[in-house]
């Protein structure tokens, strides 16, 4: 291909890049402007005077509480999902028993279930055990619904662990628990961190479960909490922009540091056929 050909290809790719990135840049810009400037000025202009006040306002307005809930619910759910998924994948891939193919199949069926088809019974189950408007309903649901995808990503890695490692440990007199926690989990750190990041993105961004199971403000996470803020600051675009930026910033920062892990995780979670 000639020079002009490549030039045209770059133009195409750049247009796509601008389309993908510009709305987010625009969001950052208007989160730092006041209404007068947002409404009167050009959408492409830099803020004439940076309005950090927007961020101070929404933080004092109580977004910190939603933020904290998102952090701990996301974190605890990730820990539980990774622990239970790796335990199950360990016995499915490494132990000798008859039903392992059956259980593997069962877990993989979980990949295909649309969450809306189980939402109503989940709600009534949590209602009957007093877990409605209780953050643990969210932790349990996140853990359960992320298990299949997490197990699927772990599966390939666990199959490739050499037998010799297990044999050596058992001959040295290690118990199975010691083998799992002391040897298998540590050597699985790279793949576990990939699944942790994928889980983080899912949990941090989840909306339906929180919107359905949680009604008190003090337990809401960011995705549902920002809905309140948008209602409250209806006409104050700067404040809404600041709210949205605060809600997406942790994921963007994670992407900045772990973009390769995220790319790996997303590609391996997608091609499941």
């Amino acid at each position, binding site marked *: *291909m000639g020079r002009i050909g*490549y030039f045209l*290809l*770059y133009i195409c*790719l750049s247009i796509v*890049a601008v*389309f*993908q*990135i510009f*709305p*987010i840049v625009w969001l950052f810009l208007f989160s730092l402007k006041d209404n007068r400037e*947002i409404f009167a000025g050009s*959408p492409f202009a830099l803020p004439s005077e940076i309005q950090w006040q927007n961020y101070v306002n929404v933080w004092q307005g109580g977004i910190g509480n939603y933020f904290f809930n998102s952090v701990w619910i996301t974190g605890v759910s990730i820990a539980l999902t990774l622990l*239970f998924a790796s335990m*199950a994948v360990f*016995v499915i891939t*490494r*132990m000798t*028993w008859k039903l392992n193919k059956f*259980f593997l199949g*069962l877990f993989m069926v*979980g990949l*295909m279930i*649309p969450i*809306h*088809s*189980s*939402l*109503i*019974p*989940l*709600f*009534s*189950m949590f209602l009957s055990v007093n877990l409605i408007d209780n953050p643990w309903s969210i932790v349990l649901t996140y853990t*359960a619904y992320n298990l299949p995808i997490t*197990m699927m990503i772990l599966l390939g890695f666990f199959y490739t662990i050499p037998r010799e490692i297990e044999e050596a440990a058992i*001959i040295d007199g290690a118990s*199975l*628990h010691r083998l*799992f926690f002391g040897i298998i989990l540590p050597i699985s750190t790279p793949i576990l961190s990939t699944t942790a990041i994928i889980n983080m*993105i899912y949990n941090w*961004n*989840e*909306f*339906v479960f929180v919107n359905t199971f949680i009604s008190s403000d003090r337990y809401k996470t960011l995705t549902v909490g*920002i*809905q309140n803020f948008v209602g409250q600051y209806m006409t104050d*675009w700067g404040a*809404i922009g600041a709210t*949205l930026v605060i*809600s997406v910033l942790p*994921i*963007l920062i994670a*992407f900045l540091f772990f973009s390769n892990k*995220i*790319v790996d995780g*997303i*590609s391996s979670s*997608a*091609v499941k056929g």
Partner: protein
Amino acid sequence: MNKVMSDKWFITLYILPAMLLLGILIFIPLVLTGYYGLMRWDGIGSMEFIGLANYINVLQDGVFWRSAGHSFLLALFSTLSLIIYLAVAMILASKIKGADFLRKIYLIPMLLSSVAIAQLWIKIYNPSNGMLNEILRGLGVQNPPLWLADPNIVLYSIFVPILWQYAGFYILIYYAALKGIPESIVEAAKIDGATPIQIAYKIKLPLIMGVVKVTVVLAIIGSLKYFDLIWVMTGGGPNGASEVMASYMYKLAFANNNFGYGSAVAFMLLLITLLVTLIVRKLTADKEELQY
């Protein structure tokens, strides 16, 4: 050794947490949805068994079928947009400097929550102060559209952020598949005098057909159960013009307390999703496995 590795207690102990969570929170609710669909129930009081009445009503419910139509329209758009993603991935994979950086840039919208995306695009579409209409007015358009408030175009307006959100995801998958094609095959075709277009269409595309089929299934299934973004952007409005199956079900159950009928709609959503998966798999089944 073999005896240790088939310790029944250990196996039970380690599989149990995952099994219980999946069983109680995913599989049992699924069955219960079908069962609740046989009831008249407001979610709090006692249930009354009414047989298949709810399911028969769903089949005759114009609002349900209109919502299903919108869901299928979104599925069609999503499938067609795969062609654009594939074209971009083809360009990206053709020895472009900075391809790795670009595909990461493309991926960024995919990392944001649907709620944040919805709120951002509500602002972009805002008829008086949104970015889009400011640009259009700058270009001299007198009366730019109302976007989300116009029932005739609301579904298209909603589809643009969906396209935006998932572009990076599909480009990433196609890019990885294209990078897996051995260089020697492409070189051989070049020596035989094939043009870039011919190489893309006749050689690369057939070789990644397996991945393309997977993405078609993903795009269709993903669209049929689409909810968050639409719920936040329009709530299914104006006047039901952007109602989809999931949002209709959610309204029935959690806004109107019609849990029995809502469950019947949820069960239909499940059946339709499984049925469509099956049909798409069947239609795209491999007649001959391509190998390299």
